[in-house]
């Protein structure tokens, strides 16, 4: 990310936060739906951990906590895709992106700032809402220590950045395909499976588990959840955050690269 992150980007993030906060009924409906799924998966996981009380190195409380963290992160990290990158895809389709390109502010930074604003709103509503319900109904575990809580916050921001870069790359396919929806659905399928949203990655056997834990999607749910659960400590904790940071930097670079390629194409098309 080129330097110069300052008041402008904060202003963009604040606008995005306000924009998403206008959909109150949608937010309430979303918290309700996340909670219903939280309840369903909690009972499913309880049945699994009753049959195998140490599966994946988790105990039953870890497993249920993991379920509710997943529901809380679903919208914050935009697991299914979407978020502000949907605006980008639409502007590519209509050609309006040409205007964005000659603004005196980087396109990646612009959309990242607004996506962070969106994520902040979703975290405070659709993140905290289900977590409170999980706490009351299923007595989920709180962060293992103040260090774990702080590291979780850092990990969450990195999770949003990694997710943003992948969604940005997906939206960029519209430069070539005109329509991102097909790639978006496929990318969402991978994200749900490899993030640990569907099933904790600690349960994935053998090479599939090794692969899943090395791919960027592990940053979305598995890494923040393990930090919350206190599974990483000391140097291991730094390694977990470093893993997310690594993918964030690599993928931000990829976004800039793809944008440069695409810009050439837009000029050729004449916008």
């Amino acid at each position, binding site marked *: 990310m080129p330097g110069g992150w300052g008041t402008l980007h904060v202003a963009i993030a604040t606008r995005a936060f306000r924009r998403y906060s206008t959909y109150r009924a949608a937010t309430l409906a979303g918290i309700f739906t996340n909670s219903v799924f939280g309840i369903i998966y909690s009972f499913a996981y309880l049945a699994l951990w009753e049959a195998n009380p140490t*599966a994946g190195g988790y105990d039953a409380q870890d497993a249920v906590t993991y379920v509710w963290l997943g529901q809380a992160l679903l919208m914050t990290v935009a697991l299914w895709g979407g978020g502000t990158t949907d605006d980008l895809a639409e502007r590519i389709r209509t050609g309006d992106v040409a205007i964005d390109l000659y603004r005196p502010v980087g396109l990646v930074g612009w959309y990242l700032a607004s996506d962070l604003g969106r994520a902040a709103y979703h975290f405070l509503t659709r993140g905290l809402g289900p977590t409170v319900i999980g706490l009351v109904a299923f007595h989920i575990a709180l962060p293992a220590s103040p260090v774990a809580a702080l590291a979780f916050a850092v990990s969450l921001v990195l999770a949003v950045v990694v997710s943003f870069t992948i969604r940005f790359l997906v939206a960029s396919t519209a430069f070539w395909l005109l329509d991102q929806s097909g790639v978006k659905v496929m990318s969402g399928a991978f994200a749900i499976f490899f993030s640990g949203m569907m099933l904790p990655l600690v349960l994935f056997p053998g090479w599939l588990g090794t692969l899943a834990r090395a791919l960027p999607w592990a940053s979305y749910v598995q890494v923040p959840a393990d930090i919350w659960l206190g599974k990483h400590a000391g140097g291991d904790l730094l390694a977990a955050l470093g893993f997310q940071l690594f993918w964030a930097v690599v993928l931000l670079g990829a976004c800039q690269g793809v944008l440069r390629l695409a810009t050439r194409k837009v000029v050729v098309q004449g916008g």
Partner: protein
Amino acid sequence: MVEPAARHLRTYGQIAWLWIRAAWQYPTSFVLLAVGNGMITGLDFVGLWIMFAHLDRLAGFSLHEVALLYGSASFALAVADTAIGSVERIGTYIRTGRLDQMMTKPVPLLVQVCADQFTLRRLGRLTQASVVLAWACTYVDWTPLRALVAVSMLVSGGLVFFGLFVGFSCVQFWTTDATEFANAFTYGGATVTQYPLAIFPREVLVGLTFVIPVAFVNWYPCLFLLGRDDPSGMPEVFQFASPVAGVLTMAAALLVWRSGVRHYTSTGS
């Protein structure tokens, strides 16, 4: 009664065909959408399979038995979602004024809403559900009565989800941006029924039987197909009652739909 129904079905088919042709304007996207949807459901089943790498039985049910529950629930949802899943978007139609346009056309509103933006990409789920179901069926000890119950299960399950999709989408006549509320009952209902309902407390099972009757989508008929005793001790007659649940859900949904349309006032946009 029969003649208008056939006419509505033909209209539905014509609108659906238009949307299929429109989707082909972006062939790459169309193919990726179908593959992507197949992948979501495919990986979903891989998840279940990974679960069984860590245990032999889930609440006393083997992988084959859970696959039967999973396949039948997924199949019923896929049929309903493919046929009328677009009804989820009523809120958008209200906001954009599209619903007003539809009301001026000489085709029943429900037919138009359900056929609108019809998409074959949902066939991915249908294919996956059929494969899982077919595999699970090879482990069933078939009798003529069981075959009959199986067919009635799939039809009734489809009807229950038809009802849930239409009924809960109607909430949007009152609050246009609460689309996701319906998901808790439609996709949530399908997720619940993928598991043996014995994993839930009895109160939940009672709710899934008498309030949101998704237990009839597959749980009760599958107990009969598998020749298992009901672990929750519900009346045995429930194992044959799926058609009743399907028709009742559908009837309730149509009533809600009618009151929703009557309540509807244009946003004027």
